[in-house]
Structures are given as structure tokens and as C-alpha cells.
């Protein structure tokens, strides 16, 4: 299942400078593992030592925060769009 992943600026260097990549994944967890396979080094940036997504990293599936869905286990289907966005300040 091909999904589109928007890569945040700090990680674009790892993805050959690309802001968006298409990858095959059936869940957010698989998406991270596949990102790591295609672009080594990505997982340790996105996840803590336990393999959980870091607390300052927000992941959105089609604009919904995955913490409101199934977190890392959230299922993906073809055509889904995922954004990875660092936490930012409010006002």
C-alpha cells in the first residue's frame, strides 16, 4: 500500500533532500520501519530508545493526530498522507 509521507526539514537530508516520499506501509509502525530501511538513521531520530515516537514529534494521518487514533498501531491504506511535524510553540 503506497502512502505519501511528508518529511520535516530536519530529516530531509537523510531522505536525499526530498520533502515527500512514497513508501509501502500498512501501519504507522511499518512506515517508520520502512523509512529506516530506505533512509537509514531516520528511526533513531523519530523514536526514543524504546522505539516509541518521541514526545516532541507529532505524526498526522490525513491531518488527524495519531494520538487520537491508534498511535503507532494506526492502520494505513493506499493514498493516505502522513505528516511528521515537530511540536511548535503556541500563542
Amino acid at each position, binding site marked *: 500500500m503506497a502512502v505519501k509521507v511528508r518529511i520535516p526539514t*530536519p530529516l530531509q537530508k537523510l531522505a536525499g533532500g526530498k520533502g515527500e516520499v512514497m513508501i509501502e506501509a500498512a501501519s504507522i509502525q511499518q512506515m517508520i520501519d520502512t523509512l529506516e530501511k530506505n533512509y537509514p538513521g531516520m528511526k533513531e531520530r523519530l523514536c526514543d530508545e524504546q522505539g516509541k515516537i518521541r514526545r*516532541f514529534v*507529532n505524526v498526522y494521518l490525513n491531518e488527524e493526530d495519531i494520538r487520537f487514533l491508534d498511535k503507532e498501531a494506526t492502520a494505513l491504506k493506499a493514498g493516505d498522507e502522513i505528516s511528521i511535524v*515537530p*511540536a*511548535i*510553540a*503556541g*500563542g
Partner: protein
Amino acid sequence: MSFLKGLRCRECGREFPKEALYVCEYCFGSLEAAYDYDGIKKVLTRDKILRGPKSLWRYRELLPIDGEPTAGFYSGFTPLVKADILAKELGVKELYIKDDSVCHPTWSFKDRVVAVALSRARELGFDTVACASTGNLANSVSANAAWAGFKRYIFIPANLERAKIIGSLVYAPNLVSVNGNYDDVNRLCSEIASKYRWGFVNINLRAYYAEGSKTLGFEIAEQLGWRAPDHIVAPAASGSLITKIWKSLQEFEKLGLLENKVKTKVYCAQPEGCAPIADSILSGSEAIKPVKPDTIAKSLAIGNPADGYYAKDVIRDTGGWAAKATNDEIREGIKLLARTEGIFTETAGGVTVACAKKLIEQGRIPRNESIVLAITGNGLKTQEAIQDSVGEAKLIDPKLDSFEEIVMGVQGSTT
């Protein structure tokens, strides 16, 4: 002379150059300004501060710019009001209101952070500034960027109070109203920020911007006669203000500017319909669980607070606590402050007053120690919230009889 050394990741401690960077490239932690405190200690004295401008720039050495400030010349240095009538009503001995409802030029504490962000934006060579905002920041960036001569793009959630929309439009920014809540606006802006070379004050200028909030804490200490108060209650949206108030007192202590040792306890006030930080304190949880906001306190309606974890740590480490206010309690809080101290605050201020009242009643804040409430915005901006709960004027004819009958309750007067 610059005392700004660079930026440092708050999570992993990695250091970065003092550019428009906002997250650690490695761990995504947010970046914070790092200073040369030894250098500052050599030049910054109480006397120097007292001789400085009557604005937040009197603490310029502790703010993250290299040269002279170029924005917000009149922002900050707001009154610290001794609130004796409210103190009596709440049954406490010593109570103060830090009144940022009269911060220049847009009546909220956001004028402090924007003064710093725009001064730094100029140093970094931006000609366009932008922000994602729940309203107060929108007003402040619109106004201050007009004065400082920047092009400006302001992004707000579509459901904002009318006064906050007009209070931005009047300064002729590019105001963009987004179908979604603040967290949606924020996410969109972070994607825009990675594509356009603009100075987003709360994104790529965040490390500089956020430091402006320290000046609220510096002023409290200075205005109390170079003393840190025993208790500070502050509202929380992203949680940044709470962390910066605490940092300000620590910096003053480190620089030997205070009479007393800092033992201040910091308390967080949040609305019932959006309380991710307060909930984590009240439930003893380590996690900050994002929520979908539903509250009249729209300036606090951030469901996914970027500084939530740091705010929680400050509250826990200082021995503070948290409280939540319902919409009705928020309205009562606004009216209580107005009726007792003559200060008309916005909904966020109502949250702070209501939560302080609860914390005092619960015994979390002792009645015989000094308490400061951070009132961060002006009530004229959120009139919708209380328009049905303040009554109406008494309508009379332009005749003395009518006045006496309807207002004074005297019937059949012949004078």
C-alpha cells in the same frame, strides 16, 4: 554587545548556531537561547536596570538579540497592582495582579515576545514575519510588524472572537483564517515555514520569541523590591509562559539581583475544556495527552501544548499545583477581578482568577504568603464571552423624574 552564545537543545543538550532554527536536528527537542552569564554578571546590576528604558528592554542583556532592539520600544513594564480588595474577598494576606491587560500596543503579554522576535527577525535578515495564533499573538504581530516595517502573514483558527479578528485586520496584515482549530493552524504553519523563508515568530523564531516572556517574571521581581514572590499563578496554553517565568527568577537569582532565595511555587491555570497540562498534574501522569479544545477561553485553546512537558516539570519541581475552570467559573473570574480591582481581563485572565480562587480554597496556596496572578490579556477582546452575564444599563428618559424613579427608586418626586 551580545551575550547570546547560541541555541541549545532542551532535550539532548546539543548546541546550534544562533540562526532561525527551532528544533534539534537530531532529537526534535526544542531549542533554547544560551547566554554568557559570566559576561552578563559583569555588567548587569540593579542600578543599570533601574536606569534603563521603562519597557521590557530594561532587561536587554538577558534577551536573545545581538545588537540594539528594533521593535516593541514601549512594550512591557506593566503595573504590578497590589490587589487588596480581591485579597480580602479571597481571604489572603498579600495579593498582586501583574497586569498585562495594558501591555503596549495590543493589550496582552504577547507584545513582550513579539518585541523580541521581531528584533531578532531583523537581525536574521527577514523581511516577512508570520505567526500561527489563537488571537493575541495575531494582534501583536500585526501591530508590531506594521510599526517595524515588516510584511506580515497571520494565521488564525476561523472561529476566533470578532474583536481579535478586527484587532488584527486594522493593522493591514495578510490575515489568513483557517478552517480548523489552533492545532490545525499550527501544523499547517509548520509546513508553510519549511517552504517559505519567512520569520514565523512562534516556529523558526521560537527560541528567541519565547524568551520575551521572561520579562514578565523579571518585572514581578523588580516591582516587589527585588524579591521573588512565594506563589505565582499563570494561565497555560502552550505552557511556555510558565517555564519562562520560572527561568526569569532563576536567572535573577543566579545574577545576584534578588534579596531573597527563590522558593516560588508556580501554579498552572487552564480551562476545563482544554487542560492537558493541568490534567497531567492532577492525575499524576507523566504523559501530556493532547485534547480537542472546547472552551470560551480561546486564547488558551491549544490541545497539543508544545511546552507541556516542561511546564509540568516546573510545576512539579517548584511544589506548585494546577486547577481547571469551567466556562461559568471563567465568567465569574472576569467579573470578580473587574468588580474588586477595576481590571477588565479576557477569558484567560478569568481562568487565572478562578483557578487561583480554587487553589486557595483547597489549601494548595496558603493564605498568609505572597501571591501574584499573571493577568495576560484584555477583556475588551473577548466581550462575547460575558455579554449575557453582566446585565444591562438602566434606560431612562432625559428627565430628573425618570432618573429618580428608575435609578434611585424614588416615586412621585415633585422637584
